[in-house]
């Protein structure tokens, strides 16, 4: 699986890991990763440790996740982004919407 999920013990935090390219091909898997969960998490962590590339449709998918997790009130963190991936996020100024580290 290119998209892996992990729910914390207390069921509050959902971690989504994307391996390889994060592009339109991951669309369905990525949606399933948060929509097909027994409960709605309080916080979502998107782990890009093993993500090699990210395109604009991936940015769109992050926006969908943010919308699902509560829009402006959403607690969505993007972690372990490589410098290339970070650059793509920076050009679009996504750090204004997501907590990126």
């Amino acid at each position: 699986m290119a998209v892996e999920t992990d729910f914390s013990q207390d069921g509050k935090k959902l971690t989504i890991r994307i391996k390889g390219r994060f592009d339109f091909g991951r669309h369905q898997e990525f949606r399933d990763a948060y929509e097909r969960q027994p409960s709605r998490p309080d916080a979502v962590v998107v782990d890009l440790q093993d993500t090699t590339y990210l395109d604009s449709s991936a940015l769109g998918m992050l926006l969908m996740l943010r919308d699902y997790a509560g829009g402006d009130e959403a607690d969505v963190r993007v972690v372990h982004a490589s410098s290339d991936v970070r650059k793509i996020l920076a050009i679009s100024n996504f750090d204004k919407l997501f907590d990126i580290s």
Partner: protein
Amino acid sequence: MPAGQGLTVLVAEDSDVDRMLLARIVKRQGHQVVTAQNGQEAVALFSERRPQLVLLDALMPVMDGFEAARQIKALAGEALVPIIFLTSLNEEQALVRCLEAGGDDFMAKPYSAVILAAKIRAMDRLRRLQDTVLQQRDQIARHHHHLLNEQRVAKAVFDKVAHSGCLGAPNIRSVQSPYALFNGDLMLAAFTPSGDMRVFLGDFTGHGLPAAVGAMPLAEVFYGMTAKGYTMPQVLREMNAKLKRILPVDMFCCALLLNLSQQRAVVEVWNGGMPDGYRLSAEGAVLTPLQSRHLPLGILGPGQFDDAVEVWPLAAGERVLLLSDGVLETADAQERLFGEQRLRSVLAGNREPALLFSELMQALALFGGQPRDDISLCDIRMPGAQEPLPAPVNYPDSGPTSPADWSLGFEVRGQSLRQFNPVPYLVQLLQQVHGLRTRGGNLYSVLSELYSNALEHGVLGLDSQLKRDVQGFADYYQERARRLALLSEGFVRIDLVVEPHAQGGRLKIDVRDSGEGFDVQQVLSRAALQQGLSGRGLELVRRLSSSATWAEGGRCARVEFAW
């Protein structure tokens, strides 16, 4: 095999006994049978009856089974007509020959009815599979053809809209891959009534039709509002709000909008998510990258949207280069990206601006080989004073109903000064006056100048002396934004009087502000001397209007247009 679903089976066998035996077995399984006594007959019957399956004896007089198989396969074309060889040969070489001649299977004599039935069913499955694949392939080809045709038509319609602008102006050079629109790229250019040039380069998320649908409404907003003289923040807000309203959550538009003002010798830039644009010297050296400072259009609601624009001086001959990410993200065989450094070295190596694009395209081809279909490039040069740009749009005449004797007072107060700009509304109103119709551009420039003077130097108390160099220039606009954000009181009042005068009429404009006023004599004499980055405004107002004076200690500007 259900009844009525039988195949037509060709049986070619030179032995009468075997032929009749086979025909009987096959018929009993519910198929129709046609028979041939040698290869030649078999080929002829195949052409005539088009059976779906062939049982072929390998060794026959006149034409043997191998040759017949080759001819039948050739006649069958793409459709799979399974051929089962009937053979008493059993050395390996002979069986291999059967398959190489185009046979799909073979069956040894003596015949077993059960095995033959099973083989016919198996071959029929293959035949149907091949049939389905062919049908689907043809369907995909039809859809693809249809799609290309739709794209062609959509592109033709869209080109009409896009080219209603001024991308063809002599100071703009641009290239776009032919179907860039369907990769989400959008390039637009138009003049404001005062002769400023606006250029928009956008890139929607995604590909194909979804990426292209947002382009129409965006172009409409851009052209409509630019022609009416709305400010950049107003246009950006409208574009953002419109896209936010109509696009699904995961779609947005990276965008760069710029305003090139020949009168003020500046370029104003808003970049949300596009790659760096470049402010270039006349020789092509990079002066400043024009970086993305904002989220793309269509993501934030009106409450959070940031319309702050960067302002840079741009002298005659200096240029601005815009590009889409297709340029930077062109990849080579190892998936390395072309990137900013390679772009910069092409820029550095360029000697003749006219050749920049072809040098860049060449560098991309050398690097990646595979040209992408989402490359947009736009190079805009600040025209010199002796090089007037095409005349701004004229509004249609409203005829003899035009009002000739009226007045209007308009006051913008307090926090409304932060975002609201009344100039476009007032200019539209004044366009109703017959004698002013052809002077819309001048009116717009003069009113804009007076309004921003009243706001910036009057209400906000900014000193235009700040703008003496490039750094000061940036400081000035930063300070302007800061003071504007804190503004809670003050006013700018515009009084318009239109009255009949002599054979024609005249318009009197008073612009008052709540500021400190200024030493009119000193400022006017200083302005006359300056050629720098400030002080162009007053000169412009005097040149474009019939008369211009300042009263009330500099707190009131009074301008007349007569016709």
